[in-house]
């Protein structure tokens, strides 16, 4: 498939791939679904980062959002697992070859309803992957029930009125001490793409809570997860950009007092340009205050909310060899030698 499209006119990236090499099957989600635009930004981010598709793994749970990995990175290994259980499958799967870059996609029901426990614990472990929650406040595949992130008072065609306070994914991630937390809006492609790139460079678990409207079941103008609300109330925390290792950041940019640069574990940089207030996303307490204010003011705050680039990730905690994959180890390395057994038996009494 990809061979045919590689005509001289097709743009190739530094590893010789065209964008098609990062695409998936045609989407079966509704036209206009926010998830489709996120899939497109995943494709674009991977292409622009010059990652070979075979060096990536994609994971998901169950739901509309979890179907989407079929629609990007066709050449990558993927695992569409169980409802709410993607984090555990991902945690185990990423021990096979821990050098792979992983993108996990979940939904608000998959994460905050059935999967809240695994969501919290995968954060604690700092498993090295990008964990995207395509958050639309509603169940799509089962047709329009409220999810845990639906706002109080929301009225839906079939489900009626929601009487409960919503779960705030970003605040939950903060409470669990996630090492990278961002919120974005599917309608802001540039920000989504830049955040995905930064998240892929993070040495640990990166939570991306992306408001991704469901055009079929929850897109009323006043609904907190709709396109209209997002466009109206999306408040940028900063202008966010990502500078890969091979590009140098412009020193002048940083010194103008309007911009802050954060170095990631792999040597790349996140560059944040001030919009209204100066904000330091490495300051945990500032992040907490920010979120409380945003909650009170009912604004959709987007950008990088918190990052700790130096936290040890799971493969490091488990002392995996830096440059070798466990799944390529052979019997010689994995089965103790015959001579060792005598001592084992002797140790038994």
């Amino acid at each position: 498939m990809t061979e045919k499209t590689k005509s001289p006119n097709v743009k190739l990236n530094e590893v010789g791939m065209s964008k098609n090499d990062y695409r998936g099957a045609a989407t079966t989600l509704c036209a206009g679904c926010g998830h489709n635009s996120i899939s497109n930004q995943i494709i674009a981010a991977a292409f622009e980062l010059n990652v070979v598709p075979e060096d990536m793994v994609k994971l998901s749970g169950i739901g509309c959002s979890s179907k989407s990995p079929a629609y990007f990175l066709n050449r990558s290994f993927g695992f569409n697992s169980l409802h709410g259980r993607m984090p555990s499958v991902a945690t185990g799967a990423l021990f096979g070859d821990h050098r792979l870059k992983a993108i996990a996609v979940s939904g608000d029901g998959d994460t905050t309803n059935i999967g809240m426990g695994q969501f919290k614990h995968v954060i604690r472990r700092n498993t090295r992957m990008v964990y995207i929650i395509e958050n639309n406040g509603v169940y799509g595949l089962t047709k329009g029930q409220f999810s845990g992130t639906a706002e109080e008072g929301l009225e839906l065609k079939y489900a009626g009125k929601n009487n409960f306070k919503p779960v705030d994914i970003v605040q939950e991630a903060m409470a669990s001490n996630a090492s990278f937390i961002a919120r974005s809006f599917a309608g802001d492609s540039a920000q989504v793409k830049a955040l995905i790139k930064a998240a892929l460079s993070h040495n640990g678990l990166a939570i991306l809570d992306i408001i991704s409207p469901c055009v079929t079941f929850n897109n009323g103008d006043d609904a907190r997860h709709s396109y209209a609300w997002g466009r109206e109330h999306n408040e940028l925390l900063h202008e966010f950009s990502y500078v890969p290792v091979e590009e140098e950041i412009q020193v002048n940019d940083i010194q103008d007092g309007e911009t802050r640069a954060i170095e990631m574990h792999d040597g790349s940089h996140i560059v944040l340009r001030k919009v209204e207030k100066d904000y330091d996303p490495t300051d945990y307490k500032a992040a907490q205050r920010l979120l409380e204010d945003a909650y009170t003011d009912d604004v959709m705050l987007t950008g990088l909310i918190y990052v700790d680039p130096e936290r040890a990730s799971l493969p490091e905690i488990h002392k995996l060899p830096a440059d070798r994959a466990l799944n390529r180890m052979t019997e010689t390395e994995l089965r103790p030698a015959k001579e060792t057994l005598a001592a084992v038996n002797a140790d038994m009494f």
Partner: protein
Amino acid sequence: MTTSKAKPAKAKKTSALITNDLSMTVATMNGSGSQTSNLTLLRALFKMGIPVSGKNLFPSNIQGLPTWYTIRVNKDGYIGRRGSNEIVVAMNGETFAKDLQDVEAGGAFFYPDHLKFDIEREDISIYSFPAKSIVKDSDAPASLRDYLTNMTYVGVVAQSLEIDLDAIHQALDFHFKGKEKPIKLNMDIIQKSYDWAAENIEKNDPYVVSKMNETGDLIMANGNTAAALGAIYGGVQFASWYPITPASSLVEEMTKRIGALRDSKEVDERTYAIIQSEDELSAIGMAIGAGWSGLRAMTSTSGPGISLMTEFVGLAYYAEIPVVIWDVQRVGPSTGLPTRTAQGDIISTHFLGHGDTQNIMLIPGTVQECFEFGWRAFDVADRYQTPVFVMSDLDLGMNQWMTKPFEYPNQPFDRGKILWEEDLEKIKNKWGRYKDIDKDAITYRTVPGNKAKNSGWFARGTGHNEEAKYSEDNEHWEENMERLSRKFESARSGVPTPIIESRKGAKIGIISYGSTNPALEETIDQLEELGMATDYLRLRAIPFSNEVKEFIETHERIYVVEMNRDGQMHKLLTLDYPQFHEKLIALPKHDGLPLRAAWIRKAIRKVEGK
């Protein structure tokens, strides 16, 4: 509690001694340190070369509830639980009256003299000993006195039964890993108690032990430790688990022992990961993820955990992901009797998962087999690309058993059909994850990290075609499920075969499995002595191999002996061999205790009308 004084022992001194044939129960409170005392007695007897077994009957509690420890000594090598006792040591006032009744006529009853009770039995020997004053008169620190009180009965019983003090010293040396201070402290109390008994107790009962040469080529271990070691020798790379009695010690032992056997001396790197998860759903989820990524992955749990793993096991069965799951069974349903033993998960685990699911199960019957299946389970899982359950139980997993030494794996790793870059190049892309190229129902898989362009595939629990693409096509679904069924059938010749013990002229067969083995070994000898020859088949796996069918075919009647209420293995045998249903007789027992030969013998004789 009554306070009148115990009457002195009155039983007549027996002239003939009974050597190396007794059952002893020690009644204590849990959390009082009695486990060390009991293991010391058990190990000392083992070191004397006498066949012996020890079983801990403990409460689901940390401290203060009654606990009993039973030791059986038998010169002929029968080590199953007997149920009756010649010797009882009563250290717990709460159960004193009951413990007194548990002594067989002619037996002996030991108790510390600070317990004041009326003792109405004249048919047994009664020995009291000053446990507290022995400890008090020693120079042991006051903080350890309660704990050391339990060492007094070791000394008194050792003197009475003639247990070798050198063997006791060896047991302590092992227990305390050669640490001089605790060894000396405990040995001192044992010696003082021994000396006190020699001076003050006039032995009236006939029970003694004497050195034999029956255990020299054996070791003493528990099944969970054996399983952990077996897994290490099987190259385990990933173990995720959640604490549950009686399975916890399996991965705990692995954690303790794997470094010395697997870690490099040069670099601080590991070839494995062990993760305590937040629950059993996560434990199996991680193990399945790891299995999918090409690692030898496992989890261990017990019945309640198995219940929680149901959905995931169905996924692994359908998506064909190798993973090993140890089920150290306890009594259920529900929380049940969490510290008692059973074989109650046979049917549910075999069919675990919704829709049509059939799981392969390996069933160890000895501690040595726990080691063997520890590594072999990975080979079976990799070969058939499916969850493989290893069905142990509390008795096998947690109690100390004498067993043959662990044997080094007799075959290299079988990683099954995995394709790496060079393999894919050789077959020129003629590959589909679920394509039955070899027509043996087992397809080829690739794992993440493979760099070949056509290596990637999307694992899913949803309907899929041969290329692992999403499919709701009715024919795809049916063909795939039929192939899975053929794959399961093919495992009949790839799992451990049963062990068959034949007796001359036997027309009656017995089928059993797992930890019932010692009781069965004894039963068939007893039945033969009574003129009823029986052949005994010990199942070691599901699906049943052809030997099982032949065994049923060639016997008039077959008793299926097991530890559950509904005769679960009997039902599975009947499902597999409906043509023999009239021959198969269920003999289930489900009181939570290890099975006794006497019960099996009587149950069979009753049906046989004898």
